[in-house]
């Protein structure tokens, strides 16, 4: 089946006065219709940049230095031309971490939704507002007829994120990129928003690319998970399988270092921690970027960068330990 969206060999570079370095490298990803894919990783892993690249919104001084993105078989990046603008908003929508700052404070919620409809679908002012009310109702905002005339600061954080989702869904996009949509929210609200995304997907068949650092969120919503580290994909696979049986030492360490409320625990077990810090994008080692922090690293890891090995049906990991010769 042809993927809805396909990223091939994507590379995003940053140029400074003195040097140029990549923040995302050799990145491949296929999104199928209706699935939820989680991009997970620590800050600086390049996950947000991937989302922005799909929108054609890589911020200066960053730029796409290599690779191809095709949407429904159409090349979006070809011959140096970025056609992302044509599908942005209409076919691919994005929501962000901070609903407070992501909504324009000086326009009403309704205007911000209606604008999409008026621009992309040529609706009249009145019709657009009516549709906005419907959208607000659909994302679970009570009393949408009133809310539509309110400003972002007048509603709560959870409502804002719902409104943001309504904006994103206005033109029924095939793909919704959600960049840490719940990080800034309280845990009870976070659950509501995740529920909403799930519901949206069921109803509209939207493909969701969810960017998060929270393995718990991955466990709850993801069909497929892509683990990123230092601008590279290091593991990919169905979420349940990856969480249950991570093949990359980083993935397993990431899972192990999260403290979880465990009613059965009587004594405190020391948390596993990953020593050291993520190397800066401008100073990445020649071999595996994780080698310096990895408990299992050996010489080859430090010398040579491991490619993605297919470890099972639909699963891959970029670790020498996952290579065929090693597993044998």
């Amino acid at each position: 089946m042809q993927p809805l969206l396909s990223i091939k060999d994507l590379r995003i570079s940053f140029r400074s006065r003195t040097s140029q370095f990549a923040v995302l490298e050799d990145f491949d990803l296929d999104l199928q219709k209706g699935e939820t894919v989680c991009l997970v990783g620590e800050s600086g892993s390049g996950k947000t940049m991937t989302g922005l690249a799909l929108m054609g919104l890589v911020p200066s001084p960053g730029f796409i230095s290599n690779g191809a993105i095709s949407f429904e078989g159409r090349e979006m990046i070809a011959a140096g031309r970025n056609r992302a603008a044509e599908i942005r908003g209409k076919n691919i929508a994005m929501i962000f971490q901070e609903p407070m700052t992501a909504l324009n404070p000086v326009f009403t919620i309704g205007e911000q939704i209606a604008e999409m409809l008026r621009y992309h679908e040529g609706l009249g002012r009145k019709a657009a507002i009516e549709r906005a009310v419907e959208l607000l109702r659909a994302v679970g905002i009570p009393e949408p007829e009133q809310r539509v005339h309110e400003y972002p600061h007048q509603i709560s954080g959870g409502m804002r994120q719902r409104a943001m989702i309504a904006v994103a869904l206005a033109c029924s996009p095939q793909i919704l990129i959600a960049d840490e949509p719940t990080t800034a929210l309280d845990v009870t609200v976070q659950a509501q928003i995740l529920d909403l995304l799930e519901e949206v997907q069921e109803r509209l068949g939207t493909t969701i690319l969810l960017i998060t650092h929270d393995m718990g969120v991955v466990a709850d919503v993801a069909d497929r998970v892509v683990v990123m580290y230092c601008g590279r994909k290091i593991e990919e696979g169905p979420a349940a399988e990856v969480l249950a049986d991570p093949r990359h030492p980083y993935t397993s360490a990431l899972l192990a270092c999260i403290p979880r409320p465990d009613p059965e625990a009587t004594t405190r077990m020391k948390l596993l921690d990953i020593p050291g810090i993520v190397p800066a994008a401008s100073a990445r080692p020649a071999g595996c970027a994780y080698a310096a922090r990895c408990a299992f690293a050996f010489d080859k890891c430090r010398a040579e960068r491991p490619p993605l090995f297919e470890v099972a049906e639909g699963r891959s990991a970029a670790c020498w330990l996952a290579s065929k010769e090693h597993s044998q």
Partner: protein
Amino acid sequence: MSKEAEKNLLEVKDLRVSFPSRHGAGAKRMVHAVNDVSFSLRRGRSLGIVGESGSGKTTTALAVMRLVEPSGGSILFDGVDLTQAKGESLRRMRPRFQMIFQDPFSSLEPRKRAGAIVREPMDLLGIGTEAERRQRVDELFARVGLRDDQKLNFPHQFSGGQRQRIGIARAIATRPDLVVCDEPVSALDVAIQAQILNLLVEVQEEFRLSYLFISHDLGVVHYVCDEIAVMYLGKIVEHNDRQSLFRQPLHPYTWALLSAVPGRGAAGRQNRIRLKGDPPSPFDLPKGCSFAQRCPFAQDECRNVRPELRAVSGGRRVACHRVNDEGIGPHHEFGEAVSRVEA
């Protein structure tokens, strides 16, 4: 346990913190950020306060530190009422209670070198001689896992985790009895978070510290704390030891909170209670239970009469009309709030 350890190091009674606030264009009103909060903490133990934003947990911490002015109640620290201490007498107490802040980027003065930052509380509070202070800084650097040469670096030259290590070193420099930790790991990546949590637990044991630990993350609180108080809109709604709180949360809110923690997979999400809406604003608190609007089990009584924090069987404390004296509430029919993580 020794007798001394039995004694409460910190005893907060009916603490109340109000701010004048001009909400919107309306007239000035008092916002009760913390409303009749009472708890106690024994030496060497840690008490977690969890809650969502606006619950008053950070304000409680700041009030204990005397960084915000309480408008009522008392804070007995080792028998001395801190709310009555002012100026010099308060300063003399300060070495004994210190604080670790949330944001490792803004809690260190950007123009000071790391060594000076760690030394500062000793300088300000006049602890030890010149040489002793220098030696203490060396010890602390080693203890929190920083290199000696890093003493001369400025905060911006450190990563988030390293900064938080500096913050910890600074907080324990005066050999305090109590350390108030205000969301010490919430700004950190998970891998680093684990490093810092481990460090916190280590130094607590090593220096016999008491922690008043503020967090919104149940996992973190579970890891660090012996007892946990759950706050909702300025009030403590449940206060329990760790195990019983996680095993059988008494208050429907606690239960909802626990069930909302992601990570239980699709199956785990089926039986959780969906709370409607966001917490109400502290500007106009409802008459009865402040959770009543969002509580799926609320009855008329809940909406009209404010429940007090009371003890139920097993010494557990809860503020809910619907929970009976055995500690059974309507939500317990729904089964466990938290199951083991599948991963």
